[in-house]
């Protein structure tokens, strides 16, 4: 391009750089984000895996080295699986994993049962109401997660809004314990993760062809029958995407069990965080993370597959 040639005869370093960039731009565009993800997303997992097979040591960082040159110039490789054995034999850890999965599966189902009619209701709204309703659903998604959890602390506390209201109405005499129970954790997860269920469902339903429902009705199908035979199968991709977007992160949730469950609800994300920050037992924390990742690897691959298919289809 002529406009890149300056007044001077010899090209400056900047111009040379510009020309090089123009000739190799395709490679540069691939390499920059690729290298970033390799370094800051993929490589860290291998380091976590490496630490998970080390032993706790009084050192900085507090674990033994995997590869070490000992005095006689001998290369030693030390790999111990004690951390994994410790986790899998300790019923506390095993129960916490099971409890986390139980809570996240239940919350996913609750989000689906509540979110599906909400998404369908938006899709079926008129041209004026639709963007407004969509905005109303997206707004909480953008509002601070932490503050939405905090809002429930005010509602559920012993001296909170719900108990005060029920006592004032004479329904109960003593406050019901809701904050710092497993009920509060379920409520918090369903509340904060609901938009992740509604938005993919909406995107999927929006593309449905309304004439299919009309055709079914014309052929004498009742609305309930049409829903189960036509609408539900067609919205399956949305259901799967939404469910995975809720299930996977909810399993490792830390903030909600900590703030709404107090010490009474054990979830693996909270155990991992505490293992790490309070006990500073890095090898065990790393092993806890690897086991959690192992449990979630299948759903994550499934999500990647559907995400890839969705972007190719559109």
């Amino acid at each position, binding site marked *: *391009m002529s406009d890149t040639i300056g007044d001077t005869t010899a090209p400056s370093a900047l111009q040379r750089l510009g020309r090089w960039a123009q000739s190799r*731009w*395709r490679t540069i*565009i*691939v390499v*920059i*984000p690729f290298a*970033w*993800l390799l*370094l*800051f*997303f993929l490589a*860290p997992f291998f380091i*976590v895996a490496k630490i998970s097979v080390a032993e706790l040591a009084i050192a900085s960082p507090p674990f033994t080295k995997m590869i070490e040159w000992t005095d006689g110039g001998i290369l030693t490789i030390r790999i111990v699986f004690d951390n994994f054995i410790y986790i899998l034999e300790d019923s506390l850890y095993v129960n916490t994993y099971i409890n986390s999965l139980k809570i996240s599966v239940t919350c996913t189902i609750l989000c689906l049962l*509540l*979110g599906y009619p*909400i998404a*369908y*209701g938006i*899709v*079926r709204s008129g041209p004026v109401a*639709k963007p407004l309703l969509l905005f*109303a*659903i*997206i*707004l*909480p998604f*953008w*509002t*601070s997660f*932490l*503050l939405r959890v*905090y*809002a429930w*602390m*005010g*509602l559920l506390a012993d001296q909170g*809004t719900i108990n*005060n209201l029920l006592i004032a109405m004479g329904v109960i005499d003593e406050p019901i314990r809701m904050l710092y129970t497993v009920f509060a954790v379920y409520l918090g997860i369903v*509340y904060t993760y*609901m938009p992740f269920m509604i938005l993919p469902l909406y995107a999927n*339903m929006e593309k449905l062809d309304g004439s299919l429902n009309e055709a079914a009705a014309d052929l004498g199908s009742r609305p309930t029958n049409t829903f189960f035979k036509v609408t539900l199968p067609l919205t399956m991709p949305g259901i799967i995407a939404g469910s*995975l977007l809720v299930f*996977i*992160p909810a*399993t*490792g949730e*830390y*903030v909600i069990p900590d*703030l709404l469950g107090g010490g009474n609800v054990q979830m693996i*994300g909270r155990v991992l*965080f505490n293992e790490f920050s309070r006990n500073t037992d*890095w090898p065990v*924390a790393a092993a806890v*993370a690897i086991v959690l990742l192992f449990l979630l690897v299948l*759903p*994550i691959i499934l*999500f*990647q597959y559907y*995400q890839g298919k969705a972007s190719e289809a559109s």
Partner: protein
Amino acid sequence: MYGKRSRFLTIMLSIGLAFFYIPMILLVIYSFNYSKLVPVWSGWSIRWYEKLLFDSPDVWAAVSLSLKIAFVNATFATLLGTLAALVMVRFGRFKGRTLFGGMLVAPLVMPEVITGLSLLVLFISLKEAIGWPAERGFTTITIAHITFSMAYVAVTVQARLTGVGQTLEEAAADLGAKPFKVLTAITIPQLTPALISGWLLAFTLSLDDLVIASFVTGPGANTLPILIFSRIRLGLRPDINALATIIILFVAICVAIAAILMFRQHRRDLRDQQLAAGEDA
């Protein structure tokens, strides 16, 4: 798809919206409570806002750190996420595409405790090996945030890229524009609405993150969520209600602006399509 909304759907919508908004509305109302005990109402007051504005330097230090991180993060995440989206949508097959695509969407669902822990051990290993990053704080939090927010930007930009199609790009190429020129003169301008919403999304995601920042931060570097979390762990606090009200208001305004921008763009696109269809006929 429009259609008749049954009574059941209308009821579910109303319950859903009430479920979403009642907790937040109560949070805002109680920020104007005079009482030090959040749920005990004792008259309207703005004393918690006064305390927040004039007597909370630590809060403002945290706000300033969070905004700085969010700004740098949003800018880099938009750049990297856009490049990644271009690679995924326009570059066809290349070696490592599956790995690339996988790494790009995995951060969307990866539990935060895993991402946080793994980035922390990376930063510590890097420091051992090459002495960088010397201390954890602004830089490490920003890098961590870029890594997960670029995935959100990539998804947003990818949708727009497939949406606008390649017609204009092909036309420009036919008229003799070099690929690089096509990219800067056609593709990037077409992407502008997605770039703006991607930037805003990355900005809010960064402002919102507690878990990953808690892992990768160092002594003394408190972001706003870290500060809020350390306080509400001990129970309800009226000054946090006031802070929450300000944040909710700020976010609502930003989202409204973004929504209006997107809506206008959507209308313009529809009009262009109609015009194009009219010319064809």
